[in-house]
């Protein structure tokens, strides 16, 4: 690694120091350089140019930038450490398909149906069933749904993807779920509920472990700007659209389907 010749020529302790110092520098450079490549350069190359994308089967784009008050609300969310107890990331364990008949179907299909399972299928099974039905002249659609513990809790319809956090700076992923996940909290409640819950959590949710945020309200119960911005941010949390990297059907699942 180091210049051997100079060491031989010097033949004293100076050469030793040069050699060790040089080795330490190179070793440290490689170690830090590699971790920089892996932790900074790689992710930046992959997601640094991430932009808005089209919602699946739609010309609308996602995500739309938050309104001003919601953007300020993110900083309120951050300042009060909401991410210490709430996550904004939904996990997904799997996906299921339902085959749904569309349009009118000939009697041959009705006869076939009793022998077929149409729900809780994998994509391969769904394709096979669709092929069987269309061979008899029937028309089908395959509906796809995400499954998982978080999704069955009603915290979302799909796993979280990088696009969901496009306008968040900093991203407030959170790691501990003392309270529920908030990825889709904007879909679940309205502003009145949010204010009531912030003011006195136990009045809205039984046995809530959340501390009261009464200090965000005036003495007469009027919400301060902080409270309004925070609620605007919470209501803007809606990761409810299908994307290419998180596909699902926006239609209602067939009755009896395990979701």
């Amino acid at each position, binding site marked *: 690694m180091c210049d051997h010749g100079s060491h031989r020529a010097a033949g004293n302790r100076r050469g030793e120091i040069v050699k060790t110092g040089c080795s330490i520098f190179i070793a440290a450079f490689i170690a830090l350089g590699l971790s920089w490549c892996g932790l900074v350069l790689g992710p930046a190359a992959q997601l640094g140019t991430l932009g808005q994308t089209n919602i699946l089967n739609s010309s*609308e784009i996602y995500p739309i930038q938050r309104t001003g008050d919601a953007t300020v609300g993110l900083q309120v969310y951050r300042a009060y450490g909401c991410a210490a107890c709430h996550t904004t990331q939904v996990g997904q364990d799997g996906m299921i398909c339902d085959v749904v008949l569309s349009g009118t179907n000939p009697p041959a299909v009705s006869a076939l149906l009793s022998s077929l399972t149409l729900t809780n299928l994998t994509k391969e099974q769904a394709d096979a069933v669709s092929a069987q039905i269309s061979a008899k002249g029937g028309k089908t659609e395959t509906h796809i749904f995400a499954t998982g513990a978080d999704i069955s809790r009603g915290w979302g319809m799909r796993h979280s993807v990088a696009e969901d956090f496009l306008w968040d700076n900093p991203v407030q992923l959170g790691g501990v779920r003392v309270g529920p996940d908030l990825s889709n909290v904007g879909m679940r409640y309205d502003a009145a509920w949010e204010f009531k819950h912030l003011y006195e959590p136990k009045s809205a949710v039984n046995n809530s472990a959340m501390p009261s945020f009464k200090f965000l309200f005036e003495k007469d119960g009027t919400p301060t700007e902080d409270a309004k911005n925070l609620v605007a941010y919470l209501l803007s949390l809606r990761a409810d659209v299908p994307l290419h990297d998180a*596909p699902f059907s926006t239609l209602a699942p067939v009755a009896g389907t395990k979701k």
Partner: protein
Amino acid sequence: MSNDSKTDLPTTQGSSSEGSTVPIWIFALLLLILFFGGVYFDRNSGWFDAQVYAPYKTGEQLEAYQPVSGAAAMMLTGQKVYGSICAACHGDNGQGKPGQAPPLAGSEVVNDANFKRVASVPQLGLNGQVQVAGQSWNLQMAPMGAALSDSDFAAVLTYIRASWGNKASDVSASDVKAFRATIAGKPAVNGEEGLKAIK
């Protein structure tokens, strides 16, 4: 590293000192294991594709699980475009609004085998007297669809031509592109005669 001490030692002991170093093939084996570990890890993480998230394993699997494609996707896109642009006047179900816009459901122009007639209306706009579903309409329509992309335009045409009891053929994006090239810069369609003149 051991060069210094080695030079101080008698040469006869050189070989035994060398024998105690880690053989080179261990390094080669470790590198090989590391490489295969990396490949295995990569393969089960969708090759580190930024679009592939668990539980999806590969890009192909993700493609397979896209809800609808082809004709069904086109109808959905068409429905979205219709809802955002056309529905305000022509109604959610293409029923039209008296004094504002004629119906699309059962309209002769929409159901015309030649899609260019119906396409010319949102592309160029419409003036004058037209006959729709047994009723005469004398209204104006701005070129509402002129700014749509070819694929969105094709989707909304396909949608209105196959919904609410209409049963006309699908329109593809390439059809729209060719059609737009032929009528670029023309004035608004003028009444029934103007529509009939489009071939």
